[in-house]
């Protein structure tokens, strides 16, 4: 049940998806992997929208070079763990939610345990190696996964429903080379907000999910391009069908 204060706080969006939709947000647990350029805007909008339980995982501390884009971290946070800094701002924005900080490195060893019990995963990581571990954990646990990535003026995002749609490894089968990426804050701002947007749609059951598509943002041309992608029957992560991913779960 929503409180009177919550009805007031969310009144403008309750007009869109009703108290039932708002209650779904309130009872949801969303795992946000990364409290950086993508994670900050994604977490901010999910907190503002009233997602009841946010788990934020990041092992880094705030550095001055983060501040051009990681909008939950301030000058005074330099040196503090990002998850602590993010939690503080999110709770100050919305004290009615729960924010669970996890200062961990996400890997094949712990990803499945970390996301277990969550309703949705937001991929706000910065390497594909870690993303592949998270993607496989989401497949194993059958949790919808909202992927995003950025560099410079460019970004992309996609929604993945395990067992139904192309997964991250179907779309990007090999990790691009790792590098220090240049970035202007508006790029992850835009993609992170899109990820939060898709998460809200998914939780409240509104609209159509952005599945089997990769949305490319070309920030220099200020254009979005939609790319159709299909499940790869030989995908090492999801095997292209639900039975294969089920088989892998038993291994």
């Amino acid at each position, binding site marked *: 049940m929503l409180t009177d204060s919550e009805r007031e706080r969310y009144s403008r969006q309750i007009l869109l998806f009703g108290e039932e939709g708002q209650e779904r947000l309130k009872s949801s647990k969303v795992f946000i992997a990364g409290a950086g350029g993508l994670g900050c805007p994604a977490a901010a909008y999910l907190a503002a929208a009233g997602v009841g339980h946010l788990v934020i995982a990041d092992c880094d501390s705030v550095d001055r070079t983060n501040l051009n884009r990681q909008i939950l971290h301030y000058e005074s946070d330099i040196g503090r763990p990002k998850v602590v800094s993010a939690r503080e701002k999110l709770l100050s924005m919305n004290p009615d939610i729960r924010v669970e900080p996890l200062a961990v490195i996400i890997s094949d060893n712990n990803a499945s345990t970390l996301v277990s019990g969550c309703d949705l995963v937001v991929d*706000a990581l*910065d390497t*594909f190696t870690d993303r592949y571990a998270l993607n496989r954990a989401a497949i194993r646990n059958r949790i919808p996964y909202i992927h995003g990535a950025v560099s410079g003026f460019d970004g992309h995002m996609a929604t993945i429903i395990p067992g139904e749609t192309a997964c991250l490894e179907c779309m990007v089968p*090999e*990790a691009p080379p790792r*590098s220090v990426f240049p970035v202007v804050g508006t790029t992850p701002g835009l993609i992170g907000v899109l990820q939060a947007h898709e998460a809200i749609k998914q939780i409240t059951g509104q609209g159509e999910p952005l599945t089997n598509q990769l949305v490319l943002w070309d920030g220099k041309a200020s254009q979005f*391009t939609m790319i159709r992608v299909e499940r790869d029957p030989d995908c090492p992560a999801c095997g292209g069908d639900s039975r294969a991913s089920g088989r892998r779960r038993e291994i």
Partner: protein
Amino acid sequence: MRVQVKAFAGFREILGPDIALELPEGSTLTGLLEGLGRRSPGIQKALFDDQGTPLKSVIIMVNKKRQTRAEFVSRELHDGDEVAIYPPVAGG
């Protein structure tokens, strides 16, 4: 025939955002990529590994649909096709 090549992200910085290519009839996607590679060592390195195999980490699309490795060789291009090349970004 004329095929439009649209480049995204890092590949746009090497090739420019948009170029039109004149290709012989019956050209395949592999042929187009190899032709691009011959234009400069930078393009070759952005598209192929040392053995000349197209990099798995680069997404190639024809008319906004991603093509699989198997389709590179078999995919015949037609006049007016749009080939897009996107080396996925990885930052967050």
